[in-house]
């Protein structure tokens, strides 16, 4: 079986944020940080970013492209896209369950 994002322990959440950030195309490290901060309103530290990037790359969920100057872009692999889609579906199910219990429309 391919790695599940929750298996990444404390880096599961940053890893998920990174995969979502890369889902619309390759980005280098700083662009990922800026994209995550813009999307969530919370900063993603550079140490956390690279710890998560290294784990995602080890597991074949993302891959590095040729560097442009000193910036190296990363992109989602086919396996990474599959894992991300599955993870988002699971999260959506959980969110829907929570909202139903609260009596809110699930949209």
């Amino acid at each position: 079986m391919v790695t599940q994002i929750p298996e990444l322990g404390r880096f599961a959440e940053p890893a998920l944020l990174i995969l979502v950030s890369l889902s619309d195309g390759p980005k280098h490290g700083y662009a990922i940080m800026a994209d995550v901060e813009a999307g969530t309103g919370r900063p993603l530290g550079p140490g956390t970013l690279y710890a998560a990037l290294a784990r995602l790359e080890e597991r074949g969920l993302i891959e590095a492209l040729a560097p442009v100057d000193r910036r190296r872009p990363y992109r989602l692999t086919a396996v990474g896209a599959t894992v991300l889609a599955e993870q988002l579906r699971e999260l959506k199910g959980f969110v829907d369950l929570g909202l139903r219990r609260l009596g809110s429309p699930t949209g």
Partner: protein
Amino acid sequence: MISLLLRLYPARWRARYGDEFAAVLEERPLGPFDVADVLLGALDAHLHLRGLGAASQHAKGFAMSLRIGGYAAIVGAALIGLVIVLTGGRTEGPESAVPIALLVALAVLLVGLAGMSAFQARSDPWLVWSAFAMTAVGTVVIFIASVSDLAGVGPGDWRDGLLPIGLVTAGLGSVLFGVATYRVSVLSRTGALALAIGPVAALIGAITVGQDAWELGMLLVLVGTVSFLAGWLTLGVAAIRLDRASSTLRPA
């Protein structure tokens, strides 16, 4: 400051990520949060470092399954289509060439099914592998019936009864695989639908032919066969595109 922080990381980590990490740190002034985060990152790198930069063999295996499955699906479906076009749908051919060609095509399709199943099984393993098992059993039965027929082994009634059982089992397996592929939603959903609908239409057509509605039955068989082959071709192309997507994209 940046160079000092970088030195806290292991040399192997710096060799792989040092340049780009330094470029990220230079993008904006470092605040206390950033420095603390980098210190924790350095500690983590020392504790965790193993095999950085190496692509996962497991992921490579999945990509290989996808590629082989895609090409096999295209070749198998194209071969069946070619045989049907060249023979006008007749299974009798000179020196048994037609049935042998169809058996080879079925075997190739089975390879395609195995490759795509291996890729998709992580999302819905029970359904995907059930579909594979049913199709594989049906294909083996078709092989036994056809090879026995070609070799003239066993009673004719036994062989004649076995072939439809194999065809129906393999057809239902393909339907199940189409449903599984549609649910997993990684490859083409259009191809999955075509694959699911084709064998059902062909089966209904075969039943209709035997009930004095020959023209309607043959039309359904034709539509079902075209849908079945189009489904495999579409899934094959989708699998290859998905595999290639990881080697042709460039930074936005």
